[in-house]
C-alpha cells in the first residue's frame, strides 16, 4: 500500500469517499488545501479583514486558527481570538490554557471571557438551580452573545467558527426533521445577519469531515483539548449524528451529497422563507433583539441576575 499522491509507503489515511490513500504530509496538505479552497470558493475573506477566531482549544477551533494563520502569514488578514470560559469544573480550564498557548505561539491578540465575569454566574452554578432550561440552552446563547460582543470590542470584521462537515450536515437534517425552516435558511459557509451589530460569521472547515480534522491535529502534533463536556447528554443532534454515521458506512459520500444538495436550494429557501426581523434593541443591554429583552438578558432575568 502506498500514498496515492507521492508513492510513500507510510500511509496514515484511507479516504473511503474517494478511495484515496495518503501519507502524513499529503494528508496534512489535502486538509489545508480543502479549507483554503472553501475560503476562496465561498469568498469568506476580504483583504484587510480582522478575523476573530472563536477558540475553545478543541480540534476544530485550533484547526481553524491554523488554516487562517496561513492567510495572516501572507499579510492578507489579521487574526484575533476569544475563548469563552463557561465555568465548568474539571473540564474547561484545560481548553482555556491550550487556547492561551496557541495565541502566544502565533503572537495574536487574545482574550478569555468568563460567564462569571460577564454575568456573575458560572454554568455549573446555573445547573444547580431548580427548573433550569438545560446546560446547552444557556451555554449556546451566552457564548454567542460574548463572541459577538468581543468581535465588536476587538474591531473584528469576521468571526470564524470551527464548524465541520459533520456539524453542517447534522444541522441540515435536524432542522429539516424538526420542520425548522427558519433555522434552515441560516446555515451555510457565511452567515450574515440583518443587524449590523452582528459580525459576519464564516466556517472555513465546513467541507471537512470531523474525523479528518481529528487526524489532522494529531498528524500535525497540534496541542488540543480532547475531552467530552460533562453536560453532553443524549441530544437530538447526537441521535441524528449516529444515524448519518451509520448511513456513511455503506454510502461514504452521503455527507457531501447532503451538503451539496442543501447548497443548491439554500438561496431559494432564503428568498422564500426569510423573515423580516424587527430591528429592536434589548431594553436591558442594548444588544439587537426582536423582543423587549434579548435571549441572554431574558435568561438572566429568569435567573434573578
Amino acid at each position, binding site marked *: 500500500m502506498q500514498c496515492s499522491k507521492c508513492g510513500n509507503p507510510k500511509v496514515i489515511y484511507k479516504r473511503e469517499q474517494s478511495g484515496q490513500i495518503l501519507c502524513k504530509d499529503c494528508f496534512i496538505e489535502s486538509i489545508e488545501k480543502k479549507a483554503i479552497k472553501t475560503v476562496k470558493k465561498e469568498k469568506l475573506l476580504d483583504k484587510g479583514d480582522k478575523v476573530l477566531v472563536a477558540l475553545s482549544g478543541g480540534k476544530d477551533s485550533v484547526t481553524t486558527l491554523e488554516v487562517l494563520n496561513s492567510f495572516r502569514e501572507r499579510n492578507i488578514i489579521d487574526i484575533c481570538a476569544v475563548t469563552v470560559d463557561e465555568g465548568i469544573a474539571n473540564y474547561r480550564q484545560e481548553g482555556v490554557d491550550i487556547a492561551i498557548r496557541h495565541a502566544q505561539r502565533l503572537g495574536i491578540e487574545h482574550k478569555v471571557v468568563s460567564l462569571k465575569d460577564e454575568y456573575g454566574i458560572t454554568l455549573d452554578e446555573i445547573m444547580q438551580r431548580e427548573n433550569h432550561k438545560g446546560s446547552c440552552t444557556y451555554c449556546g446563547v451566552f457564548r454567542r452573545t460574548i463572541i459577538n460582543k468581543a468581535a465588536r470590542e476587538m474591531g473584528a470584521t469576521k468571526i470564524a467558527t470551527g464548524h465541520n462537515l459533520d456539524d453542517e450536515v447534522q444541522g441540515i437534517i435536524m432542522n429539516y426533521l424538526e420542520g425548522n425552516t427558519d433555522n434552515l435558511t441560516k446555515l451555510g459557509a457565511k452567515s450574515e445577519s440583518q443587524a449590523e451589530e452582528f459580525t459576519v460569521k464564516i466556517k472555513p472547515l465546513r467541507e471537512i469531515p470531523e474525523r479528518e480534522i481529528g487526524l489532522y491535529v*494529531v498528524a500535525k502534533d497540534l496541542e488540543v483539548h480532547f475531552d*467530552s463536556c460533562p453536560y453532553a447528554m443524549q441530544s437530538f443532534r447526537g441521535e441524528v449524528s449516529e444515524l448519518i454515521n451509520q448511513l456513511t458506512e455503506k454510502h461514504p459520500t452521503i455527507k457531501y451529497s447532503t451538503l451539496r444538495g442543501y447548497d443548491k436550494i439554500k438561496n431559494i429557501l432564503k428568498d422564500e422563507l426569510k423573515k423580516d426581523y424587527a430591528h429592536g434593541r434589548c431594553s436591558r443591554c442594548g444588544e439587537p433583539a426582536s423582543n423587549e429583552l434579548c435571549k441572554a438578558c431574558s435568561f438572566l432575568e429568569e435567573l434573578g441576575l
Partner: protein
Amino acid sequence: MTFILKYKQLNEERDIPHENYTIKDLLKELELSAQTMVSKQNGELVIEDTVIQDGDEIQLVQIIYGG
C-alpha cells in the same frame, strides 16, 4: 507473541490472538468505533488495516467525543 496497548489510562501487554491480527480487529474487540479513533504503531500514525507485530506498541487516540 504480545504487544503493548496504550489507550487513555490503559497501558497493558496483550496477546496477539492470531496471524494477520489488525488494529481494526483490536478496535472491534474493544468495541471502539474506528470513526472516533486514530491509531499509532510504535509512535507513528497508521491505518486500521495495519497488522500488529510481536513487540509493537499500539496507541489508540480518541479524537471524537459526543457533545
